[in-house]
């Protein structure tokens, strides 16, 4: 049946993996160190860093938001709830007219419904929404997954700076507003 070659090679592949996992430094350090050699990460004792662009949670920069409702409209799940009102703000220079600005009363994102697609962040014309790679916000109650205005503003601290682009790109790197 010619059983020998392929089967032995298969055993060699798995045997080699055992040796590589137990002795990750090879012949140089023949001390068993499987914690270093394994490719898995012992969560929650150590955690991997997601990439800066990872879509973890959405943060709100309230000063830029004008309650234009574009994000709430474009969301495929309609999980953003916005209520706003108009109010008079002081004039920009002395002796001018008071100007009308939109102020938001309520800006909730329901992360239980959210598809983490990013359309809201993309369509915002005033760059008030940002992605943050934070992913550890699970709650025992589903209702707690509705993040309100203050919680969304807290996420702004975790928003990383935009990375520079690869060579040959014409895109300009955007900036995250300081909180």
């Amino acid at each position, binding site marked *: 049946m010619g*059983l020998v*070659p392929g089967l032995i090679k298969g055993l060699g592949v798995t045997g080699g993996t055992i040796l590589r996992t137990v002795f990750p430094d090879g012949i140089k350090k023949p001390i068993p160190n499987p914690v270093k050699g394994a490719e898995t990460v012992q969560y929650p004792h150590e955690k991997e860093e997601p990439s800066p*662009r990872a*879509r973890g949670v959405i943060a709100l920069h309230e000063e830029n938001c004008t309650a234009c409702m574009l994000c709430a409209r474009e969301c495929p799940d309609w999980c953003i709830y916005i209520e706003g009102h108009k109010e008079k703000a002081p004039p920009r220079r002395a002796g001018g007219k008071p100007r009308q600005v939109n102020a938001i009363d309520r800006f909730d994102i329901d992360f239980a419904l959210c*598809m983490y*697609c990013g359309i809201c962040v993309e369509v915002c014309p005033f760059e008030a929404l940002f992605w943050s790679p934070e992913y550890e916000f699970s709650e025992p109650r589903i209702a707690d997954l509705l993040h309100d205005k203050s919680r969304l503003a807290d996420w702004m601290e975790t928003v990383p700076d935009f990375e520079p682009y*690869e060579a040959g790109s014409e895109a300009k790197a955007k900036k995250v507003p300081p909180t």
Partner: protein
Amino acid sequence: MTAISDRDQLSYIAAQAADARVNVELETEGMTLNIGPQHPATHGTLRIVAKLDGEQVIAADPVMGYMHRGYEKLTEVRTYPQVTTLINRIDWVGSFANEVPFILAAEKLMEVEAPPRAQWIRTILFEMSRIANISLFLGDMGLQVGAVTPAFFAFRDREHVLNQIEAVTGGRFHPNFDRIGGLKDDLPAGWITETKRAMKKIRSFCDEIEGLLQGNEIFEARTRGIGVIPADIGLGYGLSGANIRASGVDWDTRRDNPCGLVHDELDWKVWTHVDGDSFARFWVRLQEVRESTKMVDQLLDGLPGGPVMAKVPRIIKVPAGEAYVETENPLGVMGYYIVSKGDLVPYRVKIRSASFNNISITPWLLKGVYVPDIVTILGSLYFILGDIDR
């Protein structure tokens, strides 16, 4: 169109008649085995009703629809960016590849062409989603025939590709990156070197799978000669992708009908195999992964500079018309037929998904095979439930 012999046709009709009889009365001979919808072997909620005689299958019938999510109806009330988000989830392992034919069809209607850099990056991500998808198959095929270790190797090495997709799009499985007119964003610095490293790891993974599974005599005994699909019957049932290339048909939409992707500027070959059995399907897919890694390396070397987005209005209204674009997705040929009436939302989208046609051959293919071979054959046809049921 097909060359099914008289004997095959008669036996098929006899099996159908046996089905009908058994459905009407209580079965007295043979055993009806329900494989699924909850089963480790059917990748998802597929149900196969098999009538057995001992260990041999007399007739088998796939029952689909347990995961129907109503995509084509959903698209009638979603704008184009929202549809792009949703269709990521049709074939959930071939992430980026789902969006490409839809966006290309919409661009065809709008008569907009993406700039060259966008097309090249699209092709890179397209091939990377193929690598991620087929690597899962390579590990999963081992699992179907009983070897548990290749599955772990597949998931371990796929991580590198998924990390790279996450680094550029933000999502590992649902990138949502393609836009009408180009892409959402450009590549971050350092991505090209990291991706080349990931491709090297995938190549070493392919070598491991070759040593562990492909050369293994037990694996060959389980897959050679099992589930042979003759080329004409396969084409008659609408098989596409690696399934039909394993039967000797030299058909690859990337080469024969490129549309918006830059495969014609690369140096690559289409892999075929003459046997048409499960081993051939496995072999063809293994070579395809290797070929894809070489393609990605070529693409990364030749990436042109420039913008990634063409001039398109902010609110996208696709002009009235119809367009159909199909591409060579990892599972087979996937196509989107968009009918637009000039609105923000499409009027009707018909999705031609590869796996739906790929498993239409199972009643014909599973006649007379043993029960363990059902699992091997289903594993080698490689379907994803989301792709079948949409």
